[in-house]
């Protein structure tokens, strides 16, 4: 069970949240190239290890929480608000 520290509500169970994907992609400007929109919609790094992602606290305050989580271990390193710049921990050895 993931336990996610919502910046507004405190630590809550995963079941209160709805996952919303990779938080490192951002919508290109209106006049950006087709390639930029293609990458925004479809291309993901899909890392083995630390991943910055969105969890929507849909069963709580309904805010979007930014989470740095490890996709190999499910460990959560840090959470923050959407405006926060969250760093990954220093690289850990991947199996």
């Amino acid at each position: 069970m993931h336990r996610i520290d919502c910046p507004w509500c405190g630590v809550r169970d995963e079941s209160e949240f709805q996952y919303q994907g990779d938080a490192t992609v951002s919508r290109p400007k209106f006049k950006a190239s087709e390639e930029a929109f293609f990458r925004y919609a479809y291309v993901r790094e899909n890392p083995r290890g630390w991943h910055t992602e969105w969890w929507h606290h849909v069963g709580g305050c309904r805010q979007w929480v930014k989470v740095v989580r490890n996709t190999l271990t499910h460990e959560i390193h840090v959470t923050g608000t959407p405006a926060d710049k969250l760093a990954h921990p220093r690289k850990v050895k991947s199996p």
Partner: protein
Amino acid sequence: MHYSALSLLWQGLKGHKGWGRMWRDPEPKSEYDIIIIGGGGHGLATAYYLAKEHGLKNIAVVEKGYIGGGNVGRNTTIIRSNYMLSPNTHFYEKSMQLWEGLEREFNFNAMVSQRGIINLYHSDAQRDAFARRGNAMRLAGIDAELLSPEELKERVPILDFDNARFPIEGGLCQPRGGTVRHDAVPWGYARGADSRGVDIIQNCEVTNIRIEGGRAVGIDTNRGFIGARKIGMAVAGHTSHIAAMAGIELPVESHVLQAFVSEGIKPLLDTVVTFGAGHFYVSQSDKGGLVFGGDLDGYNSYAQRGNLPMMGHVMAGGMAIMPSIGRIRMLRQWGGIMDMSFDGSPFICKTGIDGLYLNGGWCYGGFKATPASGWCFAHTIARDEPHALNAGFTIDRFKQGRMIDEKGVGPNPWIQ
């Protein structure tokens, strides 16, 4: 050795001491014509058909772990071809036809059991959608039957037909769907490929794909460099990881999907039932356990294990349509890593790099596709062009707006 009733009898008389290895354990050669990365069902099937259908020699399959240790041994063993969109319909039907002749072809008992698969519907709108899919299947020459509640009651009496939230109004049945003994599939393909000269190299992890002048020339592994004229990637959940070694970025996210087996019970269910509205599907194995699962956990993961919320959700789904299973104990639970593409459909295609081919994006539906996936991937590698059956399964389809979005949910892999 040819497996038959006679060989079983003969070995029985000799105390079963004469069964040889099913495949060799060779040291990797310094170079092959074709290397397949990934010794799962798809990779082994590809090597098998490369040797058998295209007469090619000098092929290797490299596998990080052991044969049968990946998703081919971690699925819920269902086969079906009940898709609606044309590229999927024909591709999965090819797979079904290959399943139907597979055991005789590779002389191995995979226990292919065409016990039927029934998708339940609960409203007029869902019935119409299912009827449409069934009609699309029939137009493509595939069997499909819309079952009335009365027919369904006769077929699957243990369903709760008085469910107030999801009243069961009928089901779409594909009688030729069913289950297969999943472990036997890689074993059979490995044995068949090995007997045709394919080297199956286990405990060989690929660490890099070497590219020179826009052409793939070999792989670096924990057992040294192995040269190749052509390289096929068939690594399921780790598709992004391997493709990144060649600088290829993909519309793929890896997600965990759980599956469950109950303790063995007497015969209860002689078909496969899916309760899509409640995220639950179930069949009963030949050992008697109920084999069931639901949806993805819903977050990126390479962990091969899921979490409690989805486990509870799947059990609740099961209880909703089959309350009689409530006191059966759960025996095993596990998770597998799905390479979720952004439209729910796979890739069997060339890449932008000469001599490098991609097989991936299988989402949670890779097992039933195994024979056709290998057959089409072998064709694509041998001829350096796709077969008509996999021509739509390209990476470029996302740029071209030709997505094959069977579910129609858009670019959100975790809800595909």
